């Protein structure tokens, strides 16, 4: 019996003008969890897309299950036994779980009608096989939580007896518990003989779950690592290509309570979303905001920002109550929001980097009608330099920038506006290690300038490393506040699960 399920030999992939993969060679063993790590743009996704038949390699060969293979489309790869779980969930919202799982190979009778009972029964088998018990095959996808959808994606990938499962950042939108469950499930699959190729930015997960680690950088295969013998420091150094990468620490604020209060939120309520939230934000403070996904954290920021029409409660800025009916009011009063999901809520993808940077502040530096083109241009140029945003020019469409540079573009948008309060919703979601570091440093310097920051994040290490104080939310309520000096991951989790026994998806 072959030792390897998949052997990648000298694979190159060129796009017009870019060499995305340069002579990649490595093997995936049968029944192993093989993690691929690297910064964004390292070529991980391109590689996965070649294995799953989305792209064809420019040169080189892929051997699967002992035979050389050339997949012309994803369907062929799926039929051969390679299942792909995409980063963006690709389920049909108004179809049932079972219909989604059997999408593309629905069993039908002679007259062409779907054998519904059969797909429901088979779906149940597959779900049970991966250890999921509480998802019914005939429920519509739109009623499921994000983590449940993720599980259905995996079931879909497994529906044709996949021997190799490719997972592109499966944990990026999951909470700590859900991640544990998913990693456990991956280990079970591995023990039953399935190989898993798994891309992630979360290095702790790699250490705890992977059997082998491959590091990629700039389209090249850098090295193979053994998770038992390596550590995060070493992984990062291979990923970024610099040996000494010191972990970032900021100097925290002492005596936060003695600083003057910039913003105070009193009994803020959005029916069905958040209830009765009150807290104070001090000058120059970084206030962490965490909790499980769905705890109402983004909703709290959106409510402060005037995004919802039906907000009850008060927001006070520098002691005075402000009426915020529309996001424009919040912006005019000096509140800024870097929203979650930057592609949908933050960026104007078909517009230039310059327009994306200046969309807010251009109003301030222009007359009633005409845009002050010159100052807009010079302001954008100033901030491009200051935040070292990597783009060939300011005319470039923002969609062509890397995730980190896109995020910096949005941060620049608000920095030039000089807000009193800067709220950031998952600002490092889906961006690579190097860019994360830069964003941490940015947040620190913004706070040092005296701007108060609310940092919403699901990643506890990030929260602990950045926040002077931490707010913990659960089920739409504020559960508690911790000072950085007393905060630990365990303490935060204790607040969240205070009154509850562990709830697992």
């Amino acid at each position, binding site marked *: 019996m072959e030792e390897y399920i998949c052997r990648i030999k000298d694979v190159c992939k060129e*796009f*017009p003008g870019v060499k995305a993969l340069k002579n990649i060679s490595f093997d995936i063993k049968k029944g192993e969890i093989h993690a691929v790590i690297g910064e964004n743009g390292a070529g991980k996704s391109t590689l996965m897309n070649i294995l799953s038949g989305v792209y064809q390699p420019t040169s080189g060969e892929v051997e699967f299950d002992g035979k050389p293979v050339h997949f012309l489309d994803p369907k062929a790869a799926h039929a051969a036994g390679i299942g792909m779980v995409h980063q963006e969930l690709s389920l049909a919202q108004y179809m049932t779980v079972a219909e989604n799982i059997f999408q593309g190979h629905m069993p039908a009778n002679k007259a062409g009608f779907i054998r519904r009972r059969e797909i429901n029964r088979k779906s149940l088998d597959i779900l049970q096989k991966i250890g999921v018990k509480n998802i019914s095959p005939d429920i519509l996808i739109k009623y499921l939580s994000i983590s449940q959808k993720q599980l259905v994606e995996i079931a879909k990938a497994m529906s044709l007896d996949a021997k190799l499962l490719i997972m592109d950042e499966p944990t990026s939108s999951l909470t700590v518990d859900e991640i544990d469950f998913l990693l456990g499930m991956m280990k079970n699959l591995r023990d039953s003989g399935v190989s898993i190729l798994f891309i992630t930015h979360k290095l702790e997960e790699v250490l705890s779950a992977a059997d082998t680690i491959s590091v990629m950088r700039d389209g090249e295969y850098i090295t193979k690592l053994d998770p038992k013998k390596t550590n995060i420091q070493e992984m990062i150094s291979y990923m970024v290509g610099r040996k000494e990468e010191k972990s970032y620490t900021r100097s925290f604020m002492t005596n936060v309570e003695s600083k003057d209060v910039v913003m105070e939120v009193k009994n803020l309520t959005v029916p069905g979303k958040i209830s009765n939230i009150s807290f104070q934000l001090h000058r120059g403070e970084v206030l962490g905001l965490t909790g499980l996904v769905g705890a109402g954290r983004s909703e709290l920021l959106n409510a402060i*920002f005037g*995004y919802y029409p039906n907000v009850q409660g008060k927001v006070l800025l520098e002691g005075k109550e402000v009426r915020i009916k*529309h*996001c*424009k009011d*919040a*912006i*005019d009063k000096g509140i800024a*929001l870097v*929203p979650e999901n930057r592609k*949908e*809520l*933050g*960026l*104007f*993808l*078909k*517009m230039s980097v310059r*327009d994306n940077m200046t*969309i*807010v502040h*251009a*109003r301030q530096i*222009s007359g009633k*009608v*005409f*845009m002050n*083109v010159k100052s807009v241009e010079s302001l954008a140029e100033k901030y491009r330099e200051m935040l070292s945003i990597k783009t060939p020019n300011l005319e470039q469409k923002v969609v062509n920038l890397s995730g980190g540079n896109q995020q910096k573009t949005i941060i620049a*948008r608000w920095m030039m506006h000089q807000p009193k309060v800067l709220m950031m919703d998952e600002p490092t979601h889906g961006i690579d290690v190097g860019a994360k570091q830069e964003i941490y440093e940015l947040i620190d310097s913004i706070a040092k300038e005296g701007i108060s920051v609310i940092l919403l994040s699901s990643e506890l290490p990030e929260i602990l490393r950045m926040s002077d104080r931490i707010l913990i939310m659960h089920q739409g309520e504020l559960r508690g506040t911790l000072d950085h000096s007393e905060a630990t991951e365990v303490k935060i989790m204790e607040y969240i699960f205070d009154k509850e026994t562990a709830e697992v998806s």
Partner: protein
Amino acid sequence: MKQKFMNKNMRNWLSRPEVTMFFVLLAFCIVLTFSSDYFLTSTNIMNILRQIAVYAILAVGEAFCIITGGIDLSVGSLIGWAACAGAYASTLGASPEVVLLVILAAGLLPGLINGVLIAYVGLPPFIATLGMLNIAYGLSLMITNGFPISYRDTWIHQFGGGYVGIVPISVIVTIVIVIIGFIIAKYTIFGRNIYAIGNSEKAAKLSGIKVKAVKVAVYGLTGVLAGVCGLIQMGLLNSADPTFGKGAELDVIAAAVIGGISMTGGEGNIIGVLIGAAIMGVLRNAFVLLNISGYAQTVTLGIVVVLAVAIDSIRRRREEK
């Protein structure tokens, strides 16, 4: 190195849809020059320009609607409605000044209603403006009983029939409107907000843009431009007819799309719209000069529109990769 950079800029510039379409227009004109002796005569050119004028004015408004991610199907029938409303006012004894105001207001009002229905009530633009298409057409039939109203020889007729030297005033009006449209799109906060809304309404709202107000303004503006076209048509024909502009919405949308306005919203150049309108105008003229039957004309126009959009989407797909 410097040389190479220049070439790349040059190539980027050449790959822009409006530039491509300009060369297509040029090619049409060259072919027509050789295949018809009449094409390059000044009478014919003025005819083409007059034809282009109506398309171009409407297409500027339509382009803004499409850039916000919407569409306006009512522009055609608003031409007839505005003209009829003006002529009807004259039968009640209104002075030319009042008639002018009535025509513009008759364009503006349905436009604003479109905007309110779309932005505040939440109707899909397709449905709201389809409804308005019928309402406006029906209203003009009602006030005219279905017959053209004759209205002639006042100073406002100069907009349609007048000349400065050999240049029709309608062409001058068109040029002014296209330039204003271009400036709005490129150099005003309002214009940039229009593009932002077409890219992402939510992101626009989160950037402090009053999305609903901008949409109402865009559809209102489009309505006024339809009114201007009604004024020009009336001036040209010395009467107002409910069938003015009937079906023009499709030609206008075609002109916008040929000019590089993306149907998915959020991008496109107003100068491109002028070129798109010019292509439509030259095509119509070519049909006449080359003696192509009316039935074949319709088929050809359909093919041209589909082809233009196909080329555009292939280009965009290539750009994305």
